[in-house]
């Protein structure tokens, strides 16, 4: 895009770059805003269906799909009040801190092979790091609204999110280990092909760790049984009791944004990202590499796949929210420390040994004679000549399904690469 602007439109260099950056940011923002709009409407409809009623039907045509817009306008029109004892600056700033945290994470999130804001080599690590920042907005909101109840809400939320980052981190490491790189695009590409290539079905350990990931994700986003922070029966509305109008809607959008983010992450890490259950593109001979328009359509279908899976994840979260009662703060903590973390650690070890002993997957691994297992450990799964390989950081060179140009462009420090 930038090259197009520089050479064809003849814009000066720096203007072209700023326009590209603006368009990219605008697109990512719309993913969240659009997502939030759809999910607000979906939440009302699903809650209604679960509770045997209709939900919004009149606003905007048959299924009340303009309900979110109506909410938005109502929120805009609300009086912008601030409690007396509140700390002005922090009170105003908190929702934006919370929103920008979940917004940043979308930069590194790939929607299809090349549809990614900024393709970070440490994509997963960056997303998990930024996800942890959202807690700042909540803490500041809780403190700044100068009421005991919001302080309680903020304390609970902070304790919960910070402690759930540990098992979340551990669950995220497993797909990274399987794919050999933290780059989200590589992880998703590794799972292309049939349904069985998804990491979810890679081995029993990853299957269990997927469910641990779901629990931790739901907890770190403060939804369903873990929504302690805004427990309306105890803390009125927790940290955003004193907020109303636009500021409150930013918290709301941050929540839906991170809900979508966490489900998209789950889709990429465990459910094969943009690879559909049946590899239609591969069967028809297309490839998702850069190139002519046909591949563009393949990537578009891939993007649809990912959005579908992520939306499915969000719908499950909503479904869980309207059926289960809320856990108490100490029960939330015990599930984290006594259940999620140990299980995640065990599964992590399990996957490691599985990867070590049966590197090519269950069938090929078992078929190899036991004696060979030891050398295999030395020479690496590729079976090539025994060279003292440096850290098994670089991915085992399993033949990449797409013959296109190598995924990770060669770093110029050429003498380092074996």
């Amino acid at each position, binding site marked *: 895009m930038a090259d197009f602007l520089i050479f064809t439109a003849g814009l000066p260099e720096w203007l072209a770059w700023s326009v590209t*950056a603006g368009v990219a940011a605008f697109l990512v923002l719309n993913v969240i805003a659009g997502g939030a709009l759809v999910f607000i409407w979906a939440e009302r409809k699903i809650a209604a269906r679960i509770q045997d009623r209709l939900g919004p039907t009149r606003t905007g045509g048959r299924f009340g799909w303009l309900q979110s817009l109506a909410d938005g306008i109502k929120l805009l029109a609300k009086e912008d009040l601030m409690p007396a004892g509140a700390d002005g600056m922090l009170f105003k700033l908190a929702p934006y801190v919370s929103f920008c945290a979940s917004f940043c994470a979308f930069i590194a999130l790939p929607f299809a092979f090349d549809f990614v804001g900024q393709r970070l080599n440490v994509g997963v690590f960056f997303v998990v790091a930024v996800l942890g920042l959202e807690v700042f907005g909540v803490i500041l909101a809780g403190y700044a609204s100068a009421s005991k109840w919001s302080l309680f809400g903020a304390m609970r939320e902070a304790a919960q999110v910070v402690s759930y980052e540990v098992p979340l981190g551990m669950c995220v490491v497993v797909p990274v280990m399987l794919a050999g790189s933290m780059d989200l695009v590589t992880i998703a590409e590794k799972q292309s092909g049939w349904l069985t290539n998804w990491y979810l079905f890679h081995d029993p350990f990853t299957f269990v760790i997927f469910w641990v990931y779901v629990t931790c994700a739901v907890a770190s986003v403060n939804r369903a049984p873990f929504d302690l922070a805004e427990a309306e029966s105890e803390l009125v509305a927790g940290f955003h009791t004193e907020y109303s109008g636009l500021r409150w809607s930013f918290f709301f959008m941050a929540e839906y944004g991170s809900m979508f983010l966490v489900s998209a992450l789950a889709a990429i890490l465990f459910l094969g990202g943009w690879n559909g259950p049946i590899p239609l593109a591969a069967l028809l001979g297309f490839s998702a590499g850069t190139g002519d328009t046909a591949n563009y359509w393949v990537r578009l279908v891939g993007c649809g796949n990912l959005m579908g899976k992520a939306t499915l994840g969000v719908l499950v979260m909503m479904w869980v929210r309207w059926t289960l009662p809320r856990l108490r703060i100490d029960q939330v903590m015990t599930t984290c420390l006594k259940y999620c973390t140990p299980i995640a650690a065990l599964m992590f070890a399990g996957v490691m040994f599985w990867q070590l002993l049966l590197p090519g997957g269950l069938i090929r691994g078992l078929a190899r004679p036991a004696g060979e297992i030891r050398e295999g450990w030395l020479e690496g799964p590729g079976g090539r000549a025994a060279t003292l390989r440096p850290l098994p950081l670089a991915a085992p060179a399993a033949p990449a399904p797409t013959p296109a140009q190598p995924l990770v462009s060669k*770093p110029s420090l050429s003498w380092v*690469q074996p």
Partner: protein
Amino acid sequence: MMESPTLPVFVAAINWHSLLFYLFASAACGFAVAVVLTENVVRMAFYLVLSLGATAGLFFLAGADFVGAMQLMIYVGGTLVLLVFGVMLTAQAPLVSIRTSPADKVLGGLVAASLLAVLLQSAFSVEAWRRPAVGDVGTPSATPLGMALLGVRVDADPTTETTALPAGQRPVSATQAAALNPSTRSGYLLPFEIVSVHLLVVLVGAAYLARAKRRRTPRSTETAGLDAGGGP
């Protein structure tokens, strides 16, 4: 869509790269100063968050994504959350604003100035840093970092001096050659490890000293005792 910005050939009217650098650098330093100057404890903590966030931005600008993400996660996401926790719990009304008397300000200023002088002097005296960076950064990856952890001097260029190998053995791979070459082996790994172990010891000590000392009789019965007189 957007490639990582490689250095353009000619210097454009605004070089985004340097502009962003100035932005992040000024943000980091500016908020650091704000931390010192402000009197409200909670705002102090929040400025610290912004300043460390800006340094994370600097790391990303320098192409070191891993270190930037690590800074975000460990510093901002970990340490500062605990710091804000502490500040929030204690910053009830009386303790929120901290007045520093002018004498302390002067003293603080002196100490800070001297430390700054030492830092500047040492920064400009290091030989290696004055030479332009070795080679083009290109697409950053975590591999050099891994190598550094293994003791390979990533910043020094090994091709300059290599010791003679034992006769008849040709270096099988560049890394093996690098590992053998004395000038590349020292690296910063050893001091790094020592510092982290030292830090661990300090933390354990602090935790032990600050452990909650339980009252002779547990609190709740004591307060109940107080009220039993008044209660039914």
